[in-house]
């Protein structure tokens, strides 16, 4: 299967391990990523708050290029990019007036035919393949699947590939990889997103609450599918400790890394070493075939009854 690929700035910057692990796993999933030629930034959280047109035109440029490349759909692994691209597509299709203005600005004949896919949507379609290739199933690894805000909502934009209030696709993917998703409560709460730099205090408050809830549910790691979530939950743990909002170390993994681990891909290839909170504890529990890694049974027992 061929699918367009929009990496977005973060996957080439702060979160390159996301791209590394993504590329590593798709190789095994007969999926070919075709990068959108000369893609540019989607504008993320800044453009749409300063000019609506800019917030639509920047993502539209990328969709237009993908269309010219003949790509029927584009994967945007970053949840924020996904939201911007999908919402641009949605708004343009709802508002012909806007479509006209965007085409004027782009000076392209953009027909808005490209569908935008989130990482969850794409991997959900590959569950059988993931299961089949899980040579190193993550049997005892209890994961808290964190969706954050933009992966599954609002439905008008996502098209409803998953329930916005009670989603299940990330859990399903983790299960296919042999991990054990825990039941927890804050998987849809916002981590503080774009305020990371300008208002660290808010991010610390919101992200710490998420980590605490994951920990209380007995998770060994939090799984994310967004560079921004990753940076807030991983990178900011130090600041959380510093401010007394959180103690402990919670490894935060990209969903693609979880899948990659289950396929037995070398942790280095998956970029596991790039995290701020060490992932060694995770790697230790899953080393080998995952059969008898007897560590951490205490928490395993605690949640065994709750996991789906």
């Amino acid at each position, binding site marked *: 299967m061929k699918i367009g690929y929009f990496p977005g700035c973060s996957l080439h910057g702060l979160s390159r391990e996301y791209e590394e692990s993504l590329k590593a796993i798709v190789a095994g999933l007969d999926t070919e990523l075709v990068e959108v030629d000369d893609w540019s930034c989607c504008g993320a959280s800044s453009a749409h708050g*300063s000019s609506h047109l800019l917030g639509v035109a920047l993502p539209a440029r990328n969709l237009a290029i993908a269309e010219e490349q003949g790509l029927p759909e584009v994967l945007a692994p970053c949840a924020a990019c996904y939201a911007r691209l999908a919402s641009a597509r949605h708004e343009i299709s709802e508002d012909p007036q806007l479509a006209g*203005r965007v085409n004027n600005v782009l000076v392209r004949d953009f027909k808005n035919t490209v569908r935008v896919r989130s990482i969850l949507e794409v991997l959900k379609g590959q569950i059988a393949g993931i299961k089949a290739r899980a040579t190193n199933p993550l049997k005892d690894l209890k994961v808290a699947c964190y969706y954050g805000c933009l992966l599954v909502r609002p439905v008008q934009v996502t098209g409803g590939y998953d329930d916005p209030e009670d989603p299940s696709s990330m859990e399903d993917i983790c299960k296919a990889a042999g991990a054990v998703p825990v039941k927890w409560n804050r998987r849809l709460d916002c981590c503080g997103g774009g305020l990371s730099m*300008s208002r660290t205090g808010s991010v610390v408050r919101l992200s710490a609450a998420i980590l605490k809830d994951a920990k209380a549910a007995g998770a060994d790691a939090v799984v994310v599918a967004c560079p921004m979530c990753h940076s807030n939950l991983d990178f900011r743990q130090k600041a959380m400790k510093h401010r007394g909002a959180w103690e402990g170390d919670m490894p935060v993994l990209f969903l693609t890394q979880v899948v990659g681990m289950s396929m037995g891909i070398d942790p280095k290839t998956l970029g596991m070493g790039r995290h701020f909170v060490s992932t060694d504890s995770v790697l230790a529990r899953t080393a080998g075939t995952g059969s008898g890694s007897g560590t951490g049974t205490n928490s395993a027992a605690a949640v065994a009854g709750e996991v789906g």
Partner: protein
Amino acid sequence: MGSHEHSHDHSGPEPLAARVQRMTGLNPACCYQCGKCSAGCPMAAETTLRPHDVMRLVARNRLDKLADADGLWLCLTCETCTSRCPNGCDPARTMDALREIFAAGKDGKPPKAISAFHKSFLNQVRNHGRLFEMGLIMSYKLGGGPMFADVTTTPSVLARGKLGLAPHNVKGMDEVRRIFAACAEEEAQP
């Protein structure tokens, strides 16, 4: 700003509610002030204006009150309010429209730290076509962001190979600049 196809033949300034409706295509009068948006808003504890307040002030044309408050600028665009609103009011989109109005500078100003961040961000995109994160941090600090926070962590970020030191421009820079220019021009029209 929003679409300009409607000409307004009445002489007075366009009321805020009408202006927002024109920009968003959503009727602010649909909000029945149930507060479900604010109940779920992650920033409700920190701001003085919660999404339902914003909706009310828009419906009442209170640009003045909106200008004084931090609510708009603390919004995370997490869409929690929008996805739970029973009436499809889309407070997140409404806030975008208001930020756009204020960012234009005529009706009020965003807080310094936040506007500095967005400015720096957009400058990166305008100049390189993509985000050059190192450049973003630099320009943000210089542009008014808190000076020392994060500086201590930067080396560790670099050490993990996460930040590039030199920007890579996209090839279609002309087009990116043209998009910015065209949007600015369209915004500037009365």
